[in-house]
Structure formats: C-alpha cells, structure tokens
C-alpha cells in the first residue's frame, strides 16, 4: 500500500438557508484547501466530489459544482452520490494506482431547500418503507429504542451526549448550534418521536468542505504535520432496517476492524453520529475506550450538512493531528438510515 496523507482541510460554516448556490459555497472552500496544501492546481492529479442532487432538487447539479475547481484545462475527476468521505475513499484508491500523487476531495450540500425528512424518505426502498414515509426521525427513534432497551441506558444517557456536544461546539466557529445546557433542561423537552427529542437530532445545515490528499514523501513537503491514512474501510448493513439488530452496528464494527482502529491507542474520534444515541452505538462498535475524546468539534449534533458531515469528521480528525499535536485519531462517516453504512479512517501523525 502506498502511504497517503491528508495535508489540508477547509470547510464552510454550517448554517441554514444560505443565499448562494452550492458552487458559490464551494468556491472559497476549495480555494482555501488548495492554498493551505501548498500545491498548485496543476499538481492535483485527481479530483473526486460527493453530493446529492435531491437536496437542491436539480438534476446534474454536481456537474456545475466542478466550476469551483477551475476545471480547465480539463481535469481527471469523479463524483459519488454520497457523503464526501466516500469521495475521499475513491481518491485514496486512485492514489494507490501510483501514477498521480495528489488528489482533491470536496463535497457540498444545501439541506435547507426542502423538507429534509421528506427528501430522505426517498432513499428508502420504494416498496415497503417509502410508502410509509418512514422518515429518518422515525427510523432513528426505532434504533434509539432498540439500543436503550438492549443496553440498560436511559434517555439521560442521550441528553448527556447532547449537552457535552453543545459545550464542545462553543469552541468551534463552524458550528451551527452550541452553548451550555443542562441535562435536566434537555430532558424537560417534549419528545418529537419517542425516545428522541429535538435536541437529540442534528440541525438542518447547508455546508461545504474540501480535503487535499498527497501520497508519499511529498506529503511532508506540502504540510508540516500531515495525517497519514493508516487504515480506511467502509461496510454496509442490509438496506432493509427490519432485518438488522438495530441496537448495534455490524457494518461499523467490521469497518473499524478492517481499518485497524484497535491497532493502537485512539486519542480522538470524530464520529458521524447524527442522532445522540448513534454516538453511543458507534463508541461500542468502534471499540473506543471511555477515555477517547469524542467529537471535540461538537459533532453532527451541532452542524450537519448532508453529504458533507462525514468528510468534515475526517477533516476534524486531521486537524487534531495537524493543529493540536495528537498522534492517532479516528474519523468516521455514516450514510443511510440507522447507521446503515459506515466508513472508518485511522489517521496517524509523524512523531
């Protein structure tokens, strides 16, 4: 395997109802990621993006997003209709071919143009789930109930995740929701779909992010503290939630094992836990000890641009090494209802 490192990361602040196009939102973010990498545009041999046309309700919207990259002369590029973390995976595979040495990964999502609960229904299977309008909230609540029942937790455990996330998000200028809130105050809120309250779910966010990957020794020239991808893997559970044990996440567990999470101590994990209980399921599935710092950015509960949030987790895990002197971090991304699909990336510093 060829060593590949993340050398730069940029993101737009998570916010709702932006008054730009996705392309306009991406343009400064892509520019910033490339500028921070120290590379020239022509040094980038492959570009891969992640987004979903359903979010903005415009077919082939992803093609226009390429304008943010300065795609002239023509560039070699690809797109996944998935979170940008999977675009990063494709770029990492592409760099393994050995003929190009640097890749740009970017993703964008404007989630606030429509009713996100309705839009996301359409990713469910069209025969059994979609006609029920089984929206993400309802499916997440089923998983939360299954998890609480199976593990002896109660709703206080969920509120503790929310309170901690919002407190940590106070230090994150890109967060959409932050601040001190007591567990008791959170528990005093009404349920939206039992056992979940509004605070257990993420805000509806628009956002964009970009990452530059460099292979081999050149990564150290591009960046003072690169974060090396020591393991990366993604797995999917069955599409239909009814055939799964929702109290756990088998695909997250397998991805973590294949990525080698247990191969050393983890200092920080950025988890794509869109609902509070998902963090607890993922901690267990990834085998994270209690002393692992989880979502110091505040995580998706404090800013969750669809198609971007997973890539941001990898970017934040990179920042822990690049800016905060950590040695070994984990970035995680999820897709689909009830943590159906999971990507785990182990990053390490040089020291």
């Amino acid at each position: 395997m060829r060593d590949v490192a993340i050398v730069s990361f940029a993101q737009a602040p998570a916010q709702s109802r932006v008054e730009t196009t996705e392309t306009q939102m991406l343009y400064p973010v892509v520019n910033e990621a490339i500028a921070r990498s120290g590379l020239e545009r022509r040094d980038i041999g492959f570009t891969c993006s992640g987004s979903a046309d359903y979010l903005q309700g415009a077919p082939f919207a992803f093609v226009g997003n390429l304008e943010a990259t300065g795609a002239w002369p023509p560039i070699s590029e690809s797109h996944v209709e998935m979170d940008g973390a999977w675009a990063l995976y494709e770029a990492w595979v592409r760099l393994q071919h050995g003929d190009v040495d640097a890749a740009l990964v970017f993703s964008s999502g404007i989630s606030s143009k429509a009713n996100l609960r309705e839009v996301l229904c359409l990713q469910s299977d069209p025969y059994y789930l979609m006609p029920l309008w089984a929206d993400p909230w309802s499916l997440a609540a089923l998983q939360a109930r299954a998890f609480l029942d199976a593990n002896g937790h109660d709703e206080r455990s969920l509120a503790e995740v929310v309170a901690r996330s919002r407190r940590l998000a106070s230090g994150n200028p890109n967060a959409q929701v932050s601040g001190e809130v007591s567990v008791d105050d959170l528990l005093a809120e009404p349920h939206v779909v039992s056992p979940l309250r509004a605070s257990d779910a993420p805000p509806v966010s628009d956002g964009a992010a970009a990452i530059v990957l460099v292979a081999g020794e050149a990564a150290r020239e591009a960046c003072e503290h690169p974060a090396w991808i020591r393991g990366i893997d993604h797995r999917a559970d069955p599409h239909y939630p009814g055939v799964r044990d929702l109290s756990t996440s088998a695909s997250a567990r397998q991805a973590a094992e294949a990525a080698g999470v247990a191969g050393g101590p983890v200092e920080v994990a950025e988890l794509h836990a869109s609902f509070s209980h998902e963090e607890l399921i993922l901690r267990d599935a990834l085998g994270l000890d209690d002393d692992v710092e989880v979502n110091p950015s505040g995580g998706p509960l404090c800013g969750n641009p669809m198609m971007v949030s997973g890539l941001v987790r990898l970017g934040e895990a990179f920042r822990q090494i690049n800016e905060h002197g950590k040695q070994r971090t984990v970035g995680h991304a999820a897709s689909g209802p009830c943590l159906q699909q999971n990507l785990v990336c182990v990053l390490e510093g040089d020291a």
Partner: protein
Amino acid sequence: MADRATETEDGRLKFMQQMISLDYAIRVPVVSREFGRRLKDGEISGHECPQCGLVYVPPRGFCPICVVETTWEQDAVTVSDTGTLTSWTVLTPIQYHGQQERDDYALASILLDGADGTIGQQRLLDIPLDEIRMGVRVEAVWADPSERSGESGDPRGYGFGDAIRGFRPSGEPDADRETYEKHTL
C-alpha cells in the same frame, strides 16, 4: 397512495402509480439578484473576468477557469440582446403529469453579442421548426415590464427567468461560421 393501481386479468397487481411531490424553497443567490434587477430594466448583464477577460452571462461571482472572484462593483458589463443560434433541440412533449406543453417546440443555445458563453434552453419563437439552423441571427423577445419579476428565475443562475420569453430571428443574414464555431453547445 395506490389509488391508481392496474391489475392483470387474474387480479394480480401489475402497475402501481405512486405520486410523489417534494417542495423546494428557492432562495435566489445574492449574485443573481442584481442580474434579475437589471433584467427587469431591460438590460442583460454579466461579469468580465479581470484575469482572462471572458464575459459570463449570467454572472457566477467568479471565473470558473481562472478561479478568481468577480463582483458587480468591479466587473459588471452589459451585453446585447441580440445573438447567434449555435445549437437547438426540437422537443416533442410527452404528456406526463404536470406537462404544460402540447405541441412540438424548440429550445436553443444562444451566443449573445458581447458574451463568451452561450445561454442554453432558450425558447425559439416565430421560426418554423424545419428552418432552424446554426448561425441564425436572433433577438430577444422581452416580456412586458409588468410581467418581469426581477428575480433571476433560475436558482442556479443559468437563464433569464420570466424577463425574456424567447428569441426570434432578427432578419439579419446568418452569422459566419467562424464567429460561433467554438460555441456549439
């Protein structure tokens, strides 16, 4: 939801129509608002890249080739409402749910005089479908000022919204091929 199901002769379900609608709230991008305001005044405007000089209509707020920002304050230009037809498609409308069109019609790409890129999907007016060809000189058919909303129309900034109804032949001789051959789409 399965209120329009069809069954086979022995009563098994054959087709099930499932109507789905999603409502999107379009917020016109800041850059596009000024474009729409000028359209309302009968002006087609764009941004000229300060680096390469290409003129983008409608403006995007940056040059996608040089990847530099463009602004209304620094880079605004006005272009003509006449141009050249570079490409077209004749559409035969299928009568799906919500279809407003009944008869064949043509959409064309127009290279406006003064712009460096074509505007796609412009309705062609006052020309028989079998007389459409590359190089036809056209002019904008403006909507009555009272009918122009002043918004960009297209949230992605591609079109003229409700300010221009379409383009019709201007009566000039066809343009020389060299003037549009790099703009076939």
